[in-house]
């Protein structure tokens, strides 16, 4: 922790916006109260989360070092900053960047903070935020003050509040947009942040804007509230408004947003958003956080009833002049170029410059100007790079920068005459990497590097795939180059794997007495059309074989695709049976002795296992009873996907439920061999033996996956729509993963008790 922290308060006195200054002073006080034991740890946890101060992996004071689990004896222990979160443990600081908009001075301050408080790296996230890792909580107020001094905030970057408002990063310069959504994104950010009606949600609330329906930049369909620019003509006057969507979201079970209204006039955007917030706060789930996102409320009520309630709420809202005040100032976010427009230099450029021009430079709607994408590997950049980028932004533009959900940064308003000089300047800082938006531009959440929820190393895999693909980028077929790869370290979808051509999310499997990192392969997602459709998992593959998965799928796509066939269409045409056959041999796990490389994750040196689990001699080659049940459930999930694809929603839903039941039945049999096959009895035994005892509990999701089973069980006789069947399949996959985890716990407990496999009934 820095000795200068207190001094920053004095140094920046009077330089911060009053509301932010007060907010940070309050947090300073709360830190002192918590340190003095006068503030409950749960209350403190929520208050720090609302300031973007997150926990980080190993903050419970334990870390598996590859041989044993070591205790991390932080000096201030047992003081905590939340349940099971030690005070001194390094944490993550998220910094909001509304609509991704940045200026040069803000980049310079990010550089300072990354160097002085973090590990020298600033990280761009999949929601246009910045994140700094390995931050001591004691440093956070000084860090926040320095951010506030340049107009940046961490306020409500985490917690059950309105998170960073994202928007298309080429809003205002895009040739397909209806109009520039930037001022509206800024207005809703200012209006909803700290608003009394947004402080009592059961879960977070994410908002996104897009200027058009066709592209993927805004990803409106996967947001709690999404707005697509629209116009209509009334009495000869063109009115601005929005096609408004609610109830979308990824997470463990993705939901497509529902159309709330095909045209909400611009003047109604803020009051309607406020009314939605009030309905969500009033009727949304509060006790069970796993069902607390607004998507569950919309699904439960139905969009028509939800809309009725919102409009009813809207009708009684007390008038607020802020609803429309900003409409007089829409021009405030307008941007101007620094240099005169010009076309790109004529003539063929040498490689790799030519490739960079093809992939990273796009013409703007305004003739003679271009957007230039700075490709950031894994979203990371150093202090020197941030300062270099700040200088470049000043030299070539009027500091018109935006972060992107692809974890890159875009420079806007670059004159064509400057593009080559800009490339040279970027190259000087190692920022002229080609391939923006192509298959080598892999997106990843932090995964096991720093996230407490990570199961497998998403960043490690992303780095490996990106390196391998970059080496052969110039030989890749054009159709393959345009694909998107997105990776999450777990089912929570922070890497947005559901909307990629090739998506992966981390899971694990046991092999003998070891745990093997795996990734579920998710195919058929759509990035375009604002995240128009979600992919489905086709099977888990050992982490070390994922590069082979990418090679096989892309090679097959190149060799077997029909003219102009998209990858999504190709996947649909050849079918999941064929894809599964194609990947089947890659799912094999050699024993540890035969190939120990399978048992460590990408970018890690440690054996990937549970630290306190013993190594038994009898388990290596034995296939236990439950393995058959779990394999059978896996197969049923796959069949359900095929049924859904064939338009048999009812059958697909029933099969997905049957898959859950088979997995749960297999687990129950581990404890009660003669359990009857009656589903009600299986559910009752499962509840008593695994759910109520919390063996089936996830450390972070708690009882969520067990609840999926109970809900599916209760609803098993209800009709399945295609959407419900889709969700049931996703839930079945997660129940299966949870069953694997529960079985591992059971097995570890037996081995620790010296019972071994032979002790099973």
């Amino acid at each position, binding site marked *: *922790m820095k*000795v*200068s922290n207190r001094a920053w308060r004095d140094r920046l006195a009077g330089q911060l916006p009053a509301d932010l200054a007060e907010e940070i002073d309050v947090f300073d006080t709360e830190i002192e109260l918590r340190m003095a034991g006068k503030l409950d740890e749960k209350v403190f946890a929520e208050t720090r989360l609302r300031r973007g101060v997150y926990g980080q992996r190993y903050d419970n004071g334990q870390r598996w*070092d590859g041989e044993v689990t*070591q205790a*991390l004896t932080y000096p201030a222990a047992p003081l905590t900053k939340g349940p099971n979160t030690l005070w001194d443990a390094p944490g993550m600081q998220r910094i909001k960047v509304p609509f991704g908009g940045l200026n040069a001075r803000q980049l310079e301050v990010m550089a300072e903070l990354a160097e002085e408080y973090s590990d*020298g790296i600033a990280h761009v996230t999949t929601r246009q935020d910045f994140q700094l890792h390995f931050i001591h909580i004691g440093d956070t107020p000084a860090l926040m003050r320095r951010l506030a001094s340049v107009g940046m905030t961490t306020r409500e970057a985490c917690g059950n509040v309105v998170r960073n408002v994202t928007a298309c990063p080429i809003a205002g310069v895009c040739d397909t947009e209806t109009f520039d959504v930037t001022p509206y994104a800024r207005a809703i950010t200012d209006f909803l942040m700290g608003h009394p009606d947004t402080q009592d949600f059961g879960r977070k609330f994410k908002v996104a804007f897009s200027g058009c329906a066709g592209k993927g930049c805004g990803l409106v369909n996967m947001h709690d509230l999404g707005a697509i620019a629209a116009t209509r003509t009334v009495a000869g006057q063109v009115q601005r408004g929005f096609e408004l969507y609610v109830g979308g979201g990824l997470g463990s079970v993705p939901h497509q947003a529902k159309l709330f209204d095909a045209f909400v006039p611009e003047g109604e955007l803020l009051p309607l958003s406020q009314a939605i917030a009030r309905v969500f706060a009033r009727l949304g789930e509060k006790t069970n956080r796993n069902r607390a996102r607004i998507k569950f409320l919309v699904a439960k009520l139905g969009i028509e009833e939800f809309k009725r309630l919102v409009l009813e709420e809207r009708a009684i809202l007390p008038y607020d002049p802020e609803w429309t005040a900003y409409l007089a100032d829409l021009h405030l976010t307008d941007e101007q170029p620094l240099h005169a427009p010009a076309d790109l230099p004529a003539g063929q450029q040498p490689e790799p410059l030519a490739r960079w021009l093809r992939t990273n430079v796009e013409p703007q709607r305004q003739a003679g100007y271009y957007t230039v994408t700075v490709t950031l590997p*894994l979203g990371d950049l150093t202090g020197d*790079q941030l300062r270099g980028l700040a200088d470049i932004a000043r030299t070539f533009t009027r500091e018109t920068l935006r972060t992107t959900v692809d974890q890159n940064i875009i420079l806007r308003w670059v004159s064509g005459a400057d593009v080559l000089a800009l490339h040279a300047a970027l190259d000087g800082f190692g920022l002229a990497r080609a391939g923006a938006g192509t298959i080598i531009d892999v997106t990843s959440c932090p995964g096991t590097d720093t996230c407490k929820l990570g199961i497998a190393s998403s960043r490690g895999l992303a780095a490996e795939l990106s390196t391998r693909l970059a080496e052969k980028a110039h030989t890749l077929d054009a159709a393959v180059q345009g694909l998107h790869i997105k990776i999450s370290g777990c089912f929570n979808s922070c890497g947005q794997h559901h909307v990629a051509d090739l998506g992966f999310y981390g899971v694990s499997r046991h092999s003998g007495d070891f745990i093997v990192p795996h990734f579920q392969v998710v195919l058929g997602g759509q990035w375009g059309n604002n995240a128009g459709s979600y992919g489905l998992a086709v099977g888990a593959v050992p982490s070390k074989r994922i590069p082979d998965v990418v090679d096989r799928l892309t090679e097959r796509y190149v060799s077997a695709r029909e003219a102009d066939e998209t990858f999504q269409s190709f996947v649909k045409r050849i079918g999941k049976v064929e894809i599964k056959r194609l990947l089947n041999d890659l799912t094999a796990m050699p024993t540890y002795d035969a190939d120990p490389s399978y048992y460590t994750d990408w970018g890690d040196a440690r054996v990937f296992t549970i630290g306190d689990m013993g190594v038994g001699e009898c388990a290596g080659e034995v296939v236990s009873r439950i393995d058959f049940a779990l394999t059978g459930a896996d197969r049923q999930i796959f069949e359900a996907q095929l049924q859904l694809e064939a338009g048999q929603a009812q059958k697909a839903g029933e099969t997905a439920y049957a898959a859950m039941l088979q997995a749960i039945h297999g687990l129950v049999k581990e404890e009660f061999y003669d359990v009857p096959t009656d589903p009600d009895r299986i559910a009752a035994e499962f509840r008593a033996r695994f759910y109520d005892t919390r063996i089936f509990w996830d450390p972070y999701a708690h009882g969520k996956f067990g609840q999926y089973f109970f809900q599916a069980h209760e609803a098993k006789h209800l009709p399945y729509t295609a959407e419900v069947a889709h969700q049931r399949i996703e839930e079945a996959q997660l129940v299966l993963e949870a069953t694997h985890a529960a079985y591992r716990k059971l097995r570890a407990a037996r081995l620790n008790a010296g019972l071994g496999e032979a002790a099973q009934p």
Partner: protein
Amino acid sequence: MSLQHLAVKLFAANPAQVADTHWVAYFNRWIQQHLAPEMLIDVADYRHVHHGPGVMLIAHEANYSLDETGGELGLLYTRKAEVAGDDQAVLAQAVGATLAAAQRVEADTPLRFDPARLLVIVNDRLLAPNTPETLAALRPALTTYFDGLYGAAAYTLQATAPGRERFSVTVHVPQPPTLAALAARQPATEVTSHV
């Protein structure tokens, strides 16, 4: 003006040798075997970043990294926790930790360090703004310490140009002692962790 939060970098003499070691595994072994006095937490790999911090061993009180800033590979020790004592104690702690770590790396791997150059950064822009005034204020403390380490007139100090970068000085030593000899000249310091 008092010193705290120093970062010290020893540059590699044979940077090409860096490829011969699995550094993530290597630093993980430090954690397994408690090979540094700090409480070691995790290893982060930033080799995908151009001229970045490379492979980093994260500890509670400090970080160790095979830093590539400026395109020059070196071992960087970055002190995060406060060090008790005066400026001499603070300098001795950071330089001493760097030398100890470098000796261990040399003993374990083919990588070698050049004792003729040492970079000292004050990783706190409020404590030490990168200005001529800061150099003037800190020069006595730096001179006292490096006179003791290298001998008076055996080295030169070169400050980074004033600007946005952190305040730093590079110590150039035309006829440097070995790392072991430098380590032996370190005053004994009792390092207390303050968070």
